[in-house]
């Protein structure tokens, strides 16, 4: 089949949705399809420009294309008779972020008109597509609440699952991902002050702000944790990340109200490592079940310390939970093969 994957693009920015689009195209090709990525520029800084950008997408013409898989607003407005959405998120400033400081749409009659226009264009598009899949339960709920459309939950699979296989269980807990206040790696460092066991912690990833990376270093020095907490700041190659995960005792990931499963936990479960997370970590709780596939703790250093000690001291139990985590993850069948089957069906 000739399949066009349609995403928007903000020039010079790359994030999770761009990675998802790239891997979707690669995997469609590996499954025998002719797949091409179309990236439509989306500037959105000026609210009134959004009208033009929506219209631009609606004016585009596609020929000789069997299927369109579209990921984001306003790129999904491109007309096509056979369109499937794999919705990453809508234009949140017109929905759940419309009355907060995050929105660039003013609280004026003009702003209200733009919001209305976005919602109507969205609804018309959602009515016309063959199928809507959403990447997370949060996106699914928003679509239901704000637009009253049903959708199928289709979690993005791991892009390189083969890298993540259990390679022994050493004495450290690994925490990967971008390092920032919302991901709360600092809470783990604070927790290490209160542990009683000899558990170790390895934190690796790029700091969003250099100052936050410095703050982490200062904390480790201040609490004299250098021999038990390793901090690797900066972008890490996949080989290194997969090695840290695959040789860990367990992993930890404590984001505030994350949208989706989180790649860190998916990788951890793929490698048969149970994960420590927090009660307010949002989508992560869709994967981690307390005392079965990991530990769900209050986001508080002393309580996290208790969990860290328990992971270390009940080593056999920890390893068994890692196996259970792997089993529950594989049971979800989020492979690219299965994903493409559903998108192309």
């Amino acid at each position, binding site marked *: 089949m000739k399949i066009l994957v349609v995403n928007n693009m903000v*020039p*010079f920015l790359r994030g999770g949705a761009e990675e998802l689009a790239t891997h979707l195209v690669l995997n469609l090709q590996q499954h025998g399809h002719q797949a091409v990525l179309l990236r439509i*520029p989306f500037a959105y800084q000026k609210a009134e420009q959004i009208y*033009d*950008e929506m219209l*631009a997408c*609606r004016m585009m*013409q596609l*020929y*000789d294309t069997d299927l369109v898989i579209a990921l984001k607003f306003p790129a999904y407005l491109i007309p096509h008779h056979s369109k499937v959405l794999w919705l990453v998120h809508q234009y949140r400033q017109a929905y759940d972020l419309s009355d907060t400081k995050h929105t660039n749409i003013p609280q004026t009659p003009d702003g209200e008109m733009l919001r209305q226009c976005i919602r109507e264009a969205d609804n018309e598009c959602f009515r016309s597509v063959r199928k809507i899949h959403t990447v997370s339960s949060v996106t699914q709920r928003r679509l239901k609440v704000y637009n009253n459309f049903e959708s199928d939950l289709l979690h993005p699979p791991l892009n390189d699952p083969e890298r993540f296989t259990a390679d022994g269980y050493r004495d450290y807990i690994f925490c990967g991902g971008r390092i920032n206040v919302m991901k709360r790696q600092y809470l783990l460092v604070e927790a290490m002050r209160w542990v009683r066991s000899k558990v170790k912690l390895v934190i690796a990833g790029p700091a969003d702000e250099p100052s936050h990376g410095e703050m982490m270093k200062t904390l480790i020095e201040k609490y004299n944790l250098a021999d038990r907490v390793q901090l690797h700041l900066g972008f890490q190659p996949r080989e290194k990340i997969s090695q840290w995960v695959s040789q860990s005792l367990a992993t930890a990931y404590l984001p505030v109200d994350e949208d989706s499963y989180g790649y860190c936990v998916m990788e951890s479960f793929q490698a048969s490592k149970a994960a420590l997370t927090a009660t307010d970590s949002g989508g992560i709780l869709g994967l981690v079940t307390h005392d079965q596939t990991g530990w769900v703790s209050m986001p508080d250093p002393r309580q996290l310390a208790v969990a860290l000690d328990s992971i270390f001291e009940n080593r056999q139990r920890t390893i068994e939970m890692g196996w259970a985590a792997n089993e529950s993850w594989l049971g979800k069948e989020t492979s690219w093969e299965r994903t493409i089957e559903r998108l192309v069906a």
Partner: protein
Amino acid sequence: MRFIIASSFVPFIYGGGTFIVDWLHSKLVEAGHEVETIFLPFVEHQDAMFEQMLSYRLLDLTEAADCLIALRPPAYLLRHPNKKLWFIHHFRFFYDLWQTEYCHHKDNARNNEFRKRVMDADEVGFSESKHIYTNSQIVANRLQKFNAVEGEVLYPPVIKPEIFQCQDYQPTIVCVCRLEGHKRQELLVEAMRYTKSNAKLILAGKGSSDYLPNKLKMKVLDYGLKNKVEIRDRWISEQEKADLFNHCRAAAYLPYDEDSYGYPSLEAQHASKAVISTTDSGGVPELIEHRKNGLLVEPTPVALAAAIDELVEDRALAERLGQAGPARIAELDITWDRVIRKMAA
């Protein structure tokens, strides 16, 4: 500097128009610039031309980069205050091909009005551009003739000229390009009926369908040319292409009325090989001068056979014409250094 390179494409069709974009991208990056490439869809269907042109026009990339380089039409309708054009061709059916045998638009009032509107839209793009470069003198002349616009010729180099290094002058004539009617490989096969020397012809390249390759193979059999003509009707690697040019006596390239000298002419000249072409080939004579670095003859089998025989029988002549190639390329300054200098100026 931050550059956006913009061009149009037809999804699922691959061709020369995308190479120049990809190569420019990688050379700008090599020169230390930040580059983002945008391909937007465009199909030259009369009924949908203006909608599609409008979709380009509605997108404003002002904030996204310091400079926008636009190539294939109508990418120059994208909005940016610092826009440069590397103009490679018009919508030719409304320009130089209007009312020729290739043009399928009837000469009626509606189509004349339509044609005028296309030219009006082009004029907007041209007048907004800070500088207009063309890929050949022919295209610059057309801009002058139809739009009264000055274009500066900026010849497109190949990406890796260093792979073309003369090894030998074996008695073969090679023609490396897509197997298409207007590239006139058929004329070369016909010419081989009349050659008297021990010349061998190699045609290499992929066709958009089986039609022409099969027709050529039939002719080879019908004329009993099996030992004189070899057809490699497939996509060939850069290395295989280099080997062909590096070992041959001379190259042949006979497009009908092409917009530019064509990459095959340039590649042959990098390999110090003479180019046989025809007087009606369009842009080829901008690079190839008769009896200086190649032979330009009438587009007939007999004239072409004579040219082939002359170079096969007189090896010293073939070497002299071929070895004039690198000096000719230097004379025209067909280098990425020049391209990057102009674009970053």
